[in-house]
């Protein structure tokens, strides 16, 4: 029997008080694709970063090709033939592709010979694996999909036999993801070993040979993919039976609450992010906005939330709002009945060092009921928080605990409680369930639907197509700052939406990956 390409034994790792990995063991046979699946925060990235020498494990052993190998740093991992594409790319943004490729793998003290060799090899690799990139492009000028290619090429250039990909499809359109999977299959055929981290069950089922499931820092199971089902994997991930569908009645749309006309947004760097879009949201309906991250959805939310400037027209409840940033800001939007659950609760929705009660007033601290002349009415806020925490089942129900000490799901509940309880006319909600376990997802989805049923207008932005499909009453797809089209969720599918996400309309079967690639590269979508 051949030795496993990788064997981890008893790996444990704590970040301060957080036990990210607990006594994890895993074996991956050469020439296979091994999936690792788990909730956000389960410890997948941590485990792989340990294998790649980025973090040092507190305990445990690593065997590569059957021999015990010490991997104190990434240098050692590279020497052992391991390459890793991180969830958040590790590229020097203002270097060229070529410079990024050779960084750390230079041949000699002088750059010139390394660069010319790398240029030659890059061409060979590109041809072999259909991984075309312009070697002289500056990394920050190319799209995320391209950047991911650079990361893969970096690993291949270092002659990796073992390739780790951490959630590679999060930034890709479905078609791009398909292309990536074809490349991975090619690599497997050549005998390379691949570890694929994802939390998308479908991807696991499609491509992996074996799959490991992680939950709360522990490895709960490793099974052959053919022997399992999505339902079973989901249960292993969460630890109990889960409902994968949202129950909801048909929408009864009312008046137009939000009317956006010819909206344009240019970001601080001068990049045109939102390009003349128009849409509306009615009372009692959920408009879902789908799209690959970085296609202008975030900017759209920021403008609606009142913290970016824009041009065009936004009409709420029949009255236009000022977009120049002069007369209207986040505060006045709130007074106009717009509530906003931001995409990133840790960076935006909460002050992590503030206690829960302080966070409950966040954004509403000028409200009359939280105010006491110049001062804040802390007693009133505390009281309010206690009630909200109870209604939303926030655990632990301690209003004086700092936000950073709540788990991801509970943090999101604090934000939701604050925004929903405002009884807004319009709720903006971005990535409502990112980093939240399935139990909490159910709860959050129910709250959103309940709000809709109270006749509120809801604008939902999510990169999770499943979530969009499950919640929305109408779906708009954004690509490169445009709205590619609107679809009725009952009459569309992921394939069609995926194509729109890549900026294309038409018959899915006639579009080639090459076209999609070109389109995306052209869009230069930038941010992850």
């Amino acid at each position, binding site marked *: 029997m051949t030795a496993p390409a990788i064997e981890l034994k008893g790996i444990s790792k704590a970040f301060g008080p957080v036990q990210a990995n607990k006594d994890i063991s895993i074996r991956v046979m050469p020439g296979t694709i091994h999936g690792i699946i788990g909730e956000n925060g389960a410890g997948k990235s941590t485990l792989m970063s340990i294998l790649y020498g980025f973090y040092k494990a507190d305990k445990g052993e690593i065997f590569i090709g059957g021999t015990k190998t010490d991997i104190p740093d990434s240098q050692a991992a590279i020497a052992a033939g391991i390459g890793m594409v991180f969830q958040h790319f590790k590229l020097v943004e203002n270097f060229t592709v070529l410079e990024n490729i050779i960084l750390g793998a230079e041949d000699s003290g002088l750059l010139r010979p390394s660069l010319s060799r790398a240029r030659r090899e890059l061409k060979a690799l590109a041809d072999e694996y259909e991984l075309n990139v312009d070697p002289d492009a500056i990394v920050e000028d190319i799209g995320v999909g391209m950047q991911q290619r650079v990361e893969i090429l970096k690993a291949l250039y270092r002659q990796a036999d073992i390739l780790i990909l951490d959630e590679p499809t999060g930034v890709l359109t479905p078609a791009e993801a398909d292309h990536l999977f074809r490349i991975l299959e090619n690599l497997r055929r050549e005998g390379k070993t691949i570890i694929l981290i994802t939390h998308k069950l479908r991807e696991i089922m499609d491509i992996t040979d074996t799959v490991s499931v992680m939950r*709360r820092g522990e490895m709960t199971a490793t099974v052959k993919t053919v022997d399992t089902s999505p339902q079973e994997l989901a249960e*292993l991930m969460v630890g109990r039976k889960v409902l994968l569908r949202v129950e909801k009645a048909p929408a009864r749309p009312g008046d137009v609450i939000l009317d956006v006309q010819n909206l344009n947004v240019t970001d601080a760097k001068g990049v045109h992010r939102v390009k003349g879009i128009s849409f509306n949201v009615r009372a009692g309906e959920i408009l879902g906005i789908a799209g690959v991250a970085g296609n202008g959805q975030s900017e759209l939310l920021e403008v609606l939330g009142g*913290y970016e400037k824009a041009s065009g027209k936004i009409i709420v409840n029949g009255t236009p709002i000022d977009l120049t940033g002069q007369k209207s800001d986040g505060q006045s939007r709130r007074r106009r009945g717009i509530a906003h659950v931001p995409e990133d609760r840790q960076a*935006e929705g*909460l*002050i*992590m060092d503030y206690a829960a009660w302080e966070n409950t007033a966040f954004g509403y601290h000028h409200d009359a009921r939280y105010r006491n002349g110049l*001062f*804040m009415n802390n007693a009133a806020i505390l009281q309010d928080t206690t009630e909200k925490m109870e209604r939303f089942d926030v655990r632990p129900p301690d209003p004086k605990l*700092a936000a950073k000490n709540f788990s991801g799901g509970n943090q999101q509940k604090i934000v939701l409680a604050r925004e929903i309880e405002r009884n807004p006319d319009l709720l903006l909600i971005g990535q409502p369930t990112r980093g939240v376990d399935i139990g909490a997802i159910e709860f959050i989805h129910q709250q959103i639907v309940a709000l809709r049923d109270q006749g509120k207008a809801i604008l939902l932005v999510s990169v999770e197509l499943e979530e969009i499909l499950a919640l929305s009453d109408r779906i708009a797809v954004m690509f490169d700052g445009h709205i590619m089209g609107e679809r009725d969720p009952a009459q569309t599918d992921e394939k069609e939406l995926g194509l729109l996400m890549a900026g294309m309309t038409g018959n899915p079967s006639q579009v080639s990956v090459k076209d999609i690639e070109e389109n995306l590269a052209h869009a230069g979508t930038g941010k992850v």
Partner: protein
Amino acid sequence: MDVMPKWAEVILVPLISLLLAAVLSALVILAIGENPWDALKLMVDGALGSTYGWGYTLYYATNFIFTGLAVAIAFHARMFNIGGEGQAVLGGLGVALVCLYIPFPHWSLALITASVGAALFGAAWAFIPAILQAKRGSHIVITTIMFNFIAAALLNYLLVGALKPAGSMEPATGKFPETTHLPSFQDMFSFGEATLFRGAPANISFFVAIAACIALWALIWRTRLGYEIRAYGHSESAAKYAGISPTKIIVVSLLISGGLAGMMAINNVQGEAERLVLNAVEGAGFIGIAVALMGRSHPLGVFLAAILFGFLYQGGAELALWTSIPRELIVVIQALVILFTGALDNMVRMPLERFFLSRRKPPKPDAKSTPAVGTN
């Protein structure tokens, strides 16, 4: 979860850092051939052994309270105002103009007006760096350093020119009129025969400084503005989301900061020198950094740290007077305090965190977690 209990973070870390600074300072004294213990005794005696010593200690402390608060409020907005020096210089200018050109019937009016003048001038000097930071992203640290130099040049220009009385050899304004002179501790606390604080420069500004501590505490922890400043300091992106204007916070917090730094001038310019001289600030703007760092940006902490530095200053002056230890030793101590409490605090914190982590009880079994299902 917080690794360390709050008291450890707030008290233990700065205290150990301070201790390290003290040990190193003692080594320096030893290295130049003096006895650190004797030096300490001399310092304690000179700074705290008499009302005269206290009069100096509290005088210096008053300066440092103002500049320490100035740095602290900026720290709350995550701004590093190292321009306290220049702002205090300008504050002095404000005080001088008020005292020289407005006839006052009584010192109390002079104090109020001069405080406003000092705060306005100090704030004005912070305004340009603030607005450049807010609107154009120019790094506040660099611009405030530059403004320190520019302030020095400006004051120099005025004191050898327009503000210098004819025939005077010094670059200084003339004496302020009698009615602007503030009551010193000697005036305030001498009863009958007993003359306390004789000749010491501590004056009523000390109480203004205490009032400033209390006001700043209320501002930071009780008002909506303070809430916004702290929120911005913790997370700029979150502040933007909440509709808190970064421009407003940066500008307002630095105006307050500059104003506080400027207000130091009521102590040293109006209270002590009673005229404006070059270099009246004597580095107090920089001491403010050490004071704010040690005081963990809390007004009470700033107050205590300022007293400590007042002691170091007065004790150091006594050392310099009576031994061959140069006064620069104080600068060394100041540097070590900044180094250990500001830049090297992780050196203290990391082992402490490990200590507290190891002493923690094992976590209660998580209610949500269920036993692992099937391993291979």
